[in-house]
């Protein structure tokens, strides 16, 4: 009789203990987790979280709650992108003018899925823009169709201005410069000699990346340009050699040029279970493997779109699909 009572008591005791154990583990882990992450020895995890949080406005609190401004600045500074200057354009010799070939590749990494187009003739690369700049952006695929393009990627950045509530920007208001077919469609850079990050194409088919001033671009004979960065490869040199670039993991759009002049479009899907996205460094390394000598990052995130042969071939991260943007880079059709 006494024994039975005792074992029942024991059972209840174990159950309470297990429950207490679980509650304790959950609470303790939640409280100490951020500290292990931010103050522990896990450099990659820490810099990725801080980088991703700080480059997305709505998530900055994830880092600022636990780390001082100074500590964040220090972490971000280990993730530098070297400011290499593209001072001569002689590294590229355009060899395949009037070559209508486009090759398509799928790229697969550990945590991302990407798409590559290699366009042999660089003089086909143009910039297109929304026909309603200031009022609304347009879909990459719609601007591409309007310009009779065979392929296109989203282009420069924009201010995501609210329209009555948060996150309702329409991609209407670009930043920097948009130059399309020799005409300036938009420009908020007032100082002609100030160097800002651009991606531009000259009339002879050479791609400009990284900081360039308006007057420099004029001298180089630029016909098409958008503003964005950072440059990932300059004159055959990688700009990110330590750290991951400091922008975290996200969908990416990049453009690059090979030594023989061929243009490379790279778009990497992100924020999806099958493809989380890539760091700037990973995008850079893919382009480097493809022989890029000059390469730049373009606007990423939910803007990242690759249009080819009348279809969007990547998977934009927004659940509604493609989002509207102010500018694109496209390849004119030669059919």
């Amino acid at each position, binding site marked *: 009789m006494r024994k039975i009572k005792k074992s029942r008591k024991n059972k209840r005791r174990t159950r309470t203990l297990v429950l207490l154990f679980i509650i304790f583990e959950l609470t303790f882990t939640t409280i100490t987790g951020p500290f292990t992450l931010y103050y522990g020895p896990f450099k990659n995890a820490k810099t990725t979280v801080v980088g991703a949080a700080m480059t997305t406005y709505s998530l900055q609190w994830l880092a600022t709650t636990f780390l001082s401004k100074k500590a964040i600045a220090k972490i971000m500074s280990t993730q530098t992108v070297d400011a290499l200057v593209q001072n001569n354009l002689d590294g590229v010799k355009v060899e395949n003018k009037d070559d209508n070939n486009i090759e398509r*590749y*799928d790229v697969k990494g550990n945590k*991302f899925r990407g798409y590559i187009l290699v366009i042999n003739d660089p003089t086909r690369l143009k910039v297109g823009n929304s026909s309603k700049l200031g009022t*609304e952006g347009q879909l990459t695929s719609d601007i591409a169709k309007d310009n009779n393009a065979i392929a296109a990627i989203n282009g420069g950045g924009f201010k995501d201005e609210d329209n009555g509530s948060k996150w309702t920007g329409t991609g209407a208001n670009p930043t920097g410069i948009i130059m399309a077919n020799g005409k300036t469609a938009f420009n908020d850079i007032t100082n002609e000699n100030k160097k800002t990050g651009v991606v531009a194409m000259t009339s002879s088919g050479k791609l400009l990346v990284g900081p360039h001033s308006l007057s420099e671009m004029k001298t180089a004979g630029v016909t098409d340009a958008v503003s964005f960065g950072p440059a990932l490869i300059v004159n055959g040199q990688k700009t990110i050699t330590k750290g991951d670039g400091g922008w975290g993991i996200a969908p990416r759009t990049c453009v690059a040029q090979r030594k023989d002049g061929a243009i490379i479009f790279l778009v990497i899907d992100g924020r999806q279970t099958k493809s989380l996205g890539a760091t700037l460094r990973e995008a850079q390394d893919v382009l480097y493997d493809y022989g890029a000598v000059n390469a730049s990052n373009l606007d990423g995130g939910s803007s990242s779109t690759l249009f080819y042969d009348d279809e969007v071939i990547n998977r934009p991260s*927004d659940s509604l699909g493609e989002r509207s943007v102010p500018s694109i880079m496209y390849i004119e059709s030669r059919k």
Partner: protein
Amino acid sequence: MSWMKRISIWIVVSLSLQCLGLFYIDHYFLATDSKAVSKKVVENASTKPKNIDITVPTNATKISVSYDAKYLSYYDENEKLVIANCRDGKTRNIESNDGCKISFSEWLPDRNRMLLVEKKSDDDSSNLILYSYDVLKAEKVKIKELEWGGTNAKVEDIQTSTLTGVTYVKVSNGDNKTSIYRIDRMGEMTKINTIPNLVSNIALVRHQDKLVYEGLVYNKIYATGRSENISVSNVDKLTLIGADDDDNIYLAELKDDLISKVYYGKTSQDTSEWKSIKLQTPCAKENLFVSPIGKIYQNDELQGSIKDINSGTQTSYQGKLVQLYTKGIVSVVNNKISFVLFK
């Protein structure tokens, strides 16, 4: 075992788990991906098919076309949603999850993508799930699980502005209440407080986050973010026809359930500054349409024609009207779908 000892062990367990997890993330998951694999994609020379006849089953219901009329959707006799490619006539079923039924579907206004609502078909519980379906890739992505109150919740309307990325879902709860939910680009969901309890028609302003809605009982028109209703002087009963791409809202004067005059303008303007247009022959609300570019079309069922109210141009069609799309009219003639471009 003393409590001190026990807690110490627990702390060690938690810390080692954290370290193990972070170690894995740090050394494997986040290690810079240096071995991306490439595969060349060879295009199979696409043979673009000629336009062929599209037929739908006799008992097909809720026929609807996408914005550019490249795709068509309908429910077949088993109440399954079918998508047909209007270029080659190929059809495809959209699979729903086990025990679920696609209770609502709606094409997005500017792309070949649909919003779907799935509901468990066997019970009354109101768990509805919102999906986005990419027709080109045949992929279904879950947007939000909607835990909606009321036992007989039913989605009646979805309005989306792909420009602002905002989606509004109108749900009827079976009892005397309409609920409207707003889902933004980041997937955040909020409930909208409507002034009347029952809402009939809704329309969305494309460039701004503003929903215009009509009260079911008194036919008064409201917009989110303002407390007084939108009224037109000397008009007793108004009904909401729709909105165009330039944010104009189209309201019609109702007299004995017939429309004789249409008023249109922006919500930011006073309605005294709005424009108006009189219909030569009054018609029922179902026969009046607003196109994205701001044209008002009137359907004459008997004659089988669509009239542009502003210019007076008429386009005839055969059979029964299905829907207007950006470039023309879709109708069904003896189970065959017919496309006619606007004149």
